[in-house]
């Protein structure tokens, strides 16, 4: 009788441990240049389900975005980001803007707000992922907005880091800056190795959900 009770106690403890470990939020993963880009699933601003594997066979650019961040504003008020989006999507690159701000934090938007923002600033990404639980950000260890990740058609990360080499919020600094996304995509499409595959991204920190 007592023995049976002890057994059930032990199994309950074991089960709860198993359940607890499943609930522990996964730690930020490491993204390695040359390694496979982490698979993700998210919903875009049109309610459509998006995942990385549906774009296998194409170049994919992930752009972390926070419309309130001065560094993001630098690239949007200067028209730089919109121009990049248009140029590369025309060449068959899939451009995914990722918004990982938690609800209540700077940069968080609803689908409608984002769609009206896109038309207001004339942005042209393939889709905007609404990642308000910061899952995609954790998979990619996203640090700042903007942060750019370029993935090749085989699904490998070929660039991770800053958008360019001028870490300021001044729109004047866009001209004359070396744009790492252009460099990476240009080199990869020409079959050459990417000269600068990894840089420290600059911008506002990603506003992670707890």
């Amino acid at each position, binding site marked *: 009788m007592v023995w049976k009770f002890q057994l059930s106690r032990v199994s309950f403890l074991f089960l709860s441990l198993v359940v607890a470990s499943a609930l522990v939020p996964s*730690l930020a993963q490491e993204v390695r240049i040359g390694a496979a880009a982490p698979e993700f699933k998210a919903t875009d601003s049109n309610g459509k389900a998006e995942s990385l594997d549906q774009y296998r066979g194409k170049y994919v650019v992930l752009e972390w975005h926070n419309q309130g961040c001065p560094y993001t504003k630098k690239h949007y008020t200067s028209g730089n980001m919109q121009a990049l989006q248009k140029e590369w999507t025309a060449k068959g690159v899939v451009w995914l803007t990722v918004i990982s701000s938690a609800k209540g934090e700077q940069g968080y938007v609803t689908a409608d707000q984002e769609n009206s923002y896109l038309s207001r600033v004339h942005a042209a990404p393939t889709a905007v992922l609404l990642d308000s639980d910061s899952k995609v950000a954790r998979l990619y260890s996203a640090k*700042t907005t903007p942060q750019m990740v370029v993935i090749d058609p085989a699904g490998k990360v070929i660039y991770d880091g800053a958008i360019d080499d001028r870490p300021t919020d001044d729109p004047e600094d866009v001209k004359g800056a070396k744009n790492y996304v252009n460099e990476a995509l240009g080199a990869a499409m020409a079959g050459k190795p990417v000269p600068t595959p990894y840089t420290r991204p600059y911008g506002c920190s990603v506003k992670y959900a707890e």
Partner: protein
Amino acid sequence: MRVLRILFLVFAGLVSAAGAVAASSSADVAHLHVQLVMPETTLNAGQTADVGLYFKLEPGWHVYWKNAGDSGEPPRIRWTLPDGIKAGAFQYPAPKRLPLGPLMDFGYEDEVLFPLTLSVEKSAKPGPASLHAKVDWLVCREVCIPGKAELEVAATVSDHPVKVAASAADADIYKRLLSRLPEPLPSSATAVFATTATGFKLAIFTGRAERSAAFFPVEQNILDNPAPQKASPLENGVVLDLKKDANLTGNPQQLAGVVELSDGRAYDLVAKPGAIPAAVPKTGVEGLLKAAGLAFLGGMILNLMPCVFPVLFIKGLSLVQASGEEKHTLFRHGLVYTAGIVASFWLLVGALLGLRAAGSTLGWGFQFQSPVFVALMAGLLFFLGLSLAGQFEIGLTLTSAGGTLAQKQGYAGSFFTGVLAVVVATPCTAPFMGAAVGFALAQSALVTFAIFTALALGLAAPYLLLTFQPAWTRLLPRPGAWMEVLKQATAVPLFGFVIWLVWVLAQTRGSVAAAALLAAFLLLAIAGWILGRWPAKRIPTLAAGLVIVAAIATCVYGVTTLAGPVAASADSGKGNADASRWEPWSQALVDKYRAEGRPVFVDFTASWCLSCQVNERVALRTAQVDAAFKKANVALLKADWTERDDAIAQALTSLGRSGVPAYALYASNSGTPELLPEALTPGIVTDALDKLAALEATDSAAKTATDAAKAASEAAKAAGAVH
């Protein structure tokens, strides 16, 4: 007249407006107050002067260090200075770690001063000098706000030395905050680092043990910033475990940054590659307390043994029935009883330590590794196991002898009752005592005494409690058959241990020696039968004693003289590895092979070390492992410690080991070897070799990539130069 007055007023207004437009030395902008501060406003020609950028921040807001971490940017300053005055570089005070969810930044909260030095040339024009600066910064809390200000401070250049103090507030800022700059590492201190599989180990030698440390790298993209930095104290410093950035390729030539120690000390350091000593093991007081705690628990559990429990129960009953007058002395009796137990244990420990000391001076090599000692231990444990299994009872004669002593009245009686408890408990305590003895033989005298004292106290504790509160006797379970079952059950792990010892001896001394050992066991079983058949009778006990002597002789004879060539090992079909592939160890040889690009495996062994022999037969010399070594082009070195070589002893200490066996696998490009566990299997060795190969492959791939990139850029340069 009126027109003139109006004109004058307008003019005055314009002048004052112009005055207001002139930049001030400070600005209050979003969430902060920024100011140019000078402790003295005179710039003496030909000398240097101090000026600093001061921020006072609203709570929760922060500005950044020169390496801001995962996000953020440090403040920048651009000077417009009169001729002859030049500004040096910003100096950064020691930063703080600023966690932000899964990210980590480095910066400052509340207030910070960035001092810098102005150099004033002799040719600088004396008179008022306006130092103008454009400052921009990033200040963040949950959101980030870039800010900028134009600041100006009025100074005076003087061609004769004079000191004019600035305002008290400015001077106070300097006084208060200048100390937050990190100091250069004192000349008596050094810092070295070594690469590990996941990052780096950074050792800082300050001359005293450091409990805590934090390292802030100057270069970005070297370390994984959010990863916690585990600090392991050393006798003369501290070792930090640092995780590297996931995308770091190749090994850095140096690690530069700021290290912050306890008591607010911060040092600038540049660590060069070097050897990292093993950290002081955290046992010390912690480990001792743990072991003592376990021993105490063990002592308490011993009370459940059939040798002890009935005594405890009956004594408990008699305590309950004690008259009221005796009650207050009961506890004192309990204490004396405890003293009796502790004293007996101390006697036992003393004898053990004496034997150990005698052993080393007499050159017995009294270590657990000696084959003769192991054989005798196996015999003793087998004998005790027989007793536990119920073949005979040990200690009955002792019990009767002790019984008369215990019947003495008063405190003496209580004392000897305690001694009796220890003696009587011996057959039941064998498993625990065996483990305790084994552990004790390997430890220092202090640890041994502590362990045995805790064991003694644990044994005495229940009875002591009962003397304190006799009514608790009612809580004890009734003695019964379960005690006998418990006692017999403890024989099982004991026999298991004996089987393992026999196998170890068979591996190293051959099957003939093992058979001799088993014959000795047979003799012990016969002796046990005699003792069980005729308990406590003088002649049979003597006869049993003689048989035991014969058993001991057989043991020793078998293990020493009969030790033959080891029987073919399990994979004899595949053939053993060629022993000549192993070269004698020397540090120079290790360095030579590593410089040649070959990994090195060092086997620290000794002929008197049983587990070393076992590991060699079972893992290192097998064909499978030898093939793996050949494939990885590993140089094989054997460090033979049979004669207690000093160089080998030093090498062992630097690896953090105190004895053999020890196995170190050095990669050709890493100074920190991987240490394999003390019990090897072929799988463990091949796994370590696979890990090594993976590490070397990524390193060489990274190297080829950087080489290719270098070659490409040089080719481009050459092409450019041609045009």
